[in-house]
């Protein structure tokens, strides 16, 4: 795992020193900075490195920091492949997936561009391999994504179901998650470097019999340079099990090259 992280960091350094083109800063990827995703992949041929850091203040249990990193590749038109991991402090206190150091693979395929009548549709398949601290069983998530715009306001819906293997008896072996959100470019048309985004979400809790986690997030993405986007987001889980987050913050950078 350490070797993987070193490789990713080296790749990122190469990206900042190398050639690039204008990154699509309005393209929403999971965790940058919200869990909300839009239906569009990065451009074919593009490589993007996304790194971040944040913390969560838990209602019960230890507060912790987390540091996601992911590399994305536009393999062919409309298909985006992802490889990443997330590191956390207090890794043994994490109930939910992914565990600190898990290997995360994903493939997002966009079916169409939204038009006057049709929204954009995409499907994303993710694999969470138990390579991290306390890792056990695989998680395979299938997510459907829909994006529909009304003038410059884009509304996004994510509906996912994660299949879990080797779960404990008191844990669910499958969970759904739903996210509904929107994004809007502040200052457009003359200024298109800031995108404001927000969502509400719910997901089934880890343990059987416990209520759904329900929360909300808000964030923004700001294009610093043609190939660098900075993001920041905050949120809260206002309903659900006792071990939920009262407040979380994440910030990060995306490099396209």
């Amino acid at each position, binding site marked *: 795992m350490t070797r993987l992280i070193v490789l990713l960091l080296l790749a990122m350094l190469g990206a900042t020193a190398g*050639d*690039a*083109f*204008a990154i*699509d*800063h*309005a393209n929403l990827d999971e965790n940058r900075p919200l869990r909300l995703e839009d239906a*569009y*992949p*990065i*451009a*074919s*041929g*593009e490589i993007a490195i996304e790194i971040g850091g944040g913390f969560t203040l838990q209602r019960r249990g230890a507060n912790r920091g987390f540091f996601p990193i992911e590399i994305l590749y*536009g*393999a*062919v*038109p*409309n*298909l985006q*492949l992802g490889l990443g991991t997330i590191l956390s402090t207090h890794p043994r206190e994490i109930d939910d997936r992914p565990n600190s150091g898990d290997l995360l*693979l994903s*493939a997002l*395929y*966009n*079916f*169409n*561009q*939204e*038009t*006057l*009548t*049709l929204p*954009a549709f995409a499907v994303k*398949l993710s*694999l969470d391999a138990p390579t991290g601290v306390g890792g056990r069983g*695989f998680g*395979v998530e299938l997510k459907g994504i829909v994006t529909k*715009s009304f*003038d*410059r306001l884009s509304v996004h819906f994510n509906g996912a179901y994660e299949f879990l293997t080797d779960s404990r008896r008191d844990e669910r072996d499958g969970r759904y998650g739903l996210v509904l959100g929107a994004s809007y*470019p502040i200052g*457009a*048309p*003359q200024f*298109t*470097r800031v*995108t404001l985004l927000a969502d509400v979400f719910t997901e089934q809790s880890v343990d059987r019999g416990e209520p759904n986690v329900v929360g909300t997030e808000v964030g923004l993405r700001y*294009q610093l*340079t*043609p190939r660098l986007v900075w993001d920041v987001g905050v949120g809260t889980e206002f309903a659900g099990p006792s071990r939920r987050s009262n407040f979380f913050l994440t910030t990060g950078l995306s490099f396209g090259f």
Partner: protein
Amino acid sequence: MVFKTAVVAVVLAAISSTAWTVTTAYQQPAPGHGAGHGASEQTQMQQGSRAHPEPRGGGFGTQWVTRDRRWQPRGPWKYAIMRGLPQLYREFNGIDFGHAHLAETLLKTQDQQRVEQARLQVLDFIFSSPSVPPDEEQVAPTMNQMAWEVTKTFDWTHSFHRSLYDLFASDRVKDKEAAYRKLLADYLEKPEAITPHRLDHHGALWSFPESKSFRDKFRTFNTQIWAYHWLQAAVYDVQLLGDVKKQQELMPKVIAFYHGYLRRPPVEWQFMPMLPEASPNFSKRFPEAAAIFDNLHMLHDNVDDVLSRPDLYPTLEAKRAAVLKILPIYLHRNHGANDLYTDFDEKSGMAMGQHGGMQMHGGMPMHGGMSMMDMGPKPPSVHDVLAGTAAPSDQPQPAPKAPSPTQKH
């Protein structure tokens, strides 16, 4: 293991699906569509205007459109303009905003004051010297939703444009001809690429019912757009004059001249500047690219004409239908061995990409017997600008000289 297999299967399915889409884009048969004119086309041609041809070789019928965004091709030249000629890079960012904002404005209003306000917003944007390209999907969301097919062609051709600027601004690439060939081949293999054939801009492509509407209704904005096209053309010949240091030395004079056009758009111009006029050397050495970019600029004019005629195309669907009948004329895939749009090719004997052919301007008979057309003043070559012999750009453009009786037409 089972899950890994599932992931691989889904990825392969996605790849094969994409490949199928691209393949069919080239191969869709066109039952009932030959290269000839339909009855309605012939009727309108007889009346002095030409109906949009029904798509030949497969059109764009449904609302289901694949996104197909492409990253700018990689190479040691990439981003050379941003590094070596940052002022020019910022000018190009401004131009990108200009096209998108115009389209979105015309979709919402035909009011002279509001369109003029949009023009001034574009000027403000350009003169703000933007360091980052605008996000055109956020500038023009309606236009993109209305006709993503044409957006793809614009985007991919603009990417080719920028790649060539980068190439000629890169001292790291010694064999520029070879790199050009590679970029050109990569560009042309995509289904949304514009043909490198010279098309009949002055005649067939400007004889549709809506042709010249944008020029005649919004002349100031139109000639401001043509000023962008003049700069985009003129830059190439400056780049061929030397290395980056030389380009850095010469480019400010060209940009200053262009700014004169922005301060006082050359409203006397009657037709867009052509690559062979502004950049004659580039057009001789790289004729395919010159033709592609002239075609690109003409396609911009065609689209703006459609957007300027809500009386002919009152709904977004009607505008979309019109634009998607014009677009196939330009696509490289329709100009292969079996050219489906020969009636839109530049006719033999016409001067390549010139205002009225060689020295002929101002009401001369042109284009193989088509209508008399006043081409107006000829935009200067960049060499005239560098030599200081071009007419001042921020003043009324001089009328073209009448040809002497001895000139051969």
